[in-house]
């Protein structure tokens, strides 16, 4: 299946802004997070098709996965 992966903030460093990636059916967001070596301690927000999601949520063909760092401003 095809997943559009969109990265934000420091996750773009040495990776990409947005890319279409091929994955096996029933892959979870976690699988992509692991493959991209996104640091767990910085990962704050996971969105699937614009909706807040969890790492173990299963993706479907055509989904957009957005990964954003933690928000702790001030």
């Amino acid at each position, binding site marked *: 299946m095809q997943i559009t992966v969109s990265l*934000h903030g*420091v996750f773009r460093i040495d990776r990409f802004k947005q890319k279409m990636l091929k994955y096996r059916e029933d892959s979870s967001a976690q699988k992509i997070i692991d493959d991209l070596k996104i640091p767990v*301690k910085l990962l704050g927000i996971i969105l699937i098709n614009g909706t807040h999601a969890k790492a173990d949520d299963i993706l479907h063909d055509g989904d957009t996965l957005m990964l*954003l*760092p*933690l928000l*702790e*401003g*001030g």
Partner: protein
Amino acid sequence: MKIQTTDPVAHPERIFYRRCTVDLKTGSIKIEDIPCRNLEDVLGGFGRSFQQLAEREIKTAYCAENPLIVNTGLLTGSSAMTGLRTYFSSYSPIKKSKQGMSAAMWSAGSGKFGAKFKWTGLDELIFENRSEKPVYVLIKETINGPEVELKSADHLLGLSTHKKIMTLHQAHNDAHFAAIGQAGENWQNVTMGSVALSTVNQLKSGDDKLRFAGRGGMGSMMGYKNILALVAQSEDKNLPISDAVKKVHTQVIKGGGAARLQPIKRGGGGGTWAAYDVMQPFNAVPINNYRPQGNDLPEELFRENVEKNYDIQSAACYRCGITCHNYISEKNADGSRGEFIAKFDYEPLNLLGTNIGIHEAGQAGRLIQLCDNYGMDAISLGVTVSYALSYNERHPENLLFNGANFGDYEKICELVILAGEGKLPDIGKGSKYLSELMGETDYAYHIKGLELAAYLPETNPGYCWAIAGGHMSMGSYGTLIREGISDVNSWVKVITEDKLHIVGFDMIGLCKFFDITQGIGTQMVVDCLKSEFDFEIKPEKIKDAVRRSFLLGLALELRQGYTKSEYCLPAEVVNNPNPHIKLPNITNKEFIAALDEKVWNVFDAELLKINLNKI
């Protein structure tokens, strides 16, 4: 502190804090050890100062009876990381109810002044009345204990925050400083004056690398009292860090909140500024008076874009490994670091940058620098300016001031300078004042008279119950973006249980980044208290004290004439929903009405138990 117990909950009276009361009218100075009444007194900060303010019936900030209380927290000056906080408390000249009564307020800042103050042997300094002549206050550590002296400050009059500090630095070794700028000196026309706190980086480099206790006009209160600066002179007390505290530090650095703030080269996100990258995908970066337009303009202030033209350096306060802020400097032709411009923290950057239509980093930096040097609260100033610019956008036929529009850098500079010099009171007195003057209050982004932080109110209805400014006294500002929580009951819990605990940091002397998700009622804090003072205390007892202090803050607001209808978001947010924000709408009338009722149900039941006359 004099500590004669290991149980601060059962025996607070066996813990004494050292207070100095200065009567600025007579010059009398009294130093005494005061037994604590409860755990709030032991923890310090606003937990103690609000009990003192509650004892006074003050209607208007600028009156002789309104004290200015300078204190620290229990862990200020300790080996615990971020233990550098100083607190300034008073009835506020800017935060006022619609009835016109001043609200009790505190403001907190880092830098090294707090630790130096604590190391003089003093825990609290109360200023009564006002001085006839401008003075600065020298607080010294001596072999006989702390000494406090009032000194003539004629030579400091008219100087910026930075210049005052550097002038005093020439005269006093081994000292750190708290100073107001011209804005605080012009307290009649500027109620948003801040207090600048010196940093090691500032004194070493000679650059204006300050930290601030910005909120609530505490610098204006200092100006009213005719105190231009405080000097804390003491030897550093760097005791060895115990294994227990070292373990806590590792947790702080690696833990949730702080990890995000670490410099990029240490695997972090690069300071508070990085909030831009997280909020922009939701169109939630405040732009043009909190009205995102669904465009990519905020991206111009993304780090990756700023770095092309400017030098960026991660920065930290004394002995702090969190490194939450950045410095921006000019970049020389050869790529080396040029002249220092300003600190780049998220709030000032947004509110004196994107939110006033300034998208060029150097210009935003110069505005922050002006604001810092005049000694104004960057949040109040930025939001009041953005109100004026939005007014001009709505009324091209009836322009305010110099007719500045969003993005008019030169004209905005002029407004900031005039406000800082006390020549533009309509800006200097804040957005509540200006919007009431103009008869258009819907577009003024303040709640209860205090301007909002740089998080859209559409993302944070919890702002309404913050007792001392949105992002410092109600930690709900990231909840919608971070977790997507959009049901009323969860928000009630967020406001009445989880996120009010952020105020605990402004009791104990630590920065919120120590553990932003959990607050201070944690094993980490318990371990620090055991190591530093041999205290036996349970996290729950700390949490209880924090909650009591928060509720006292609410009770004090209500006593100062606030009605519940004043606990509301700016009307534009509710009446004219912004279609560009890509988040669930949790600020519509129905949601707000339900939230209001449920939150007050919880708080009202507890407020009934507070008897302000018995404090």
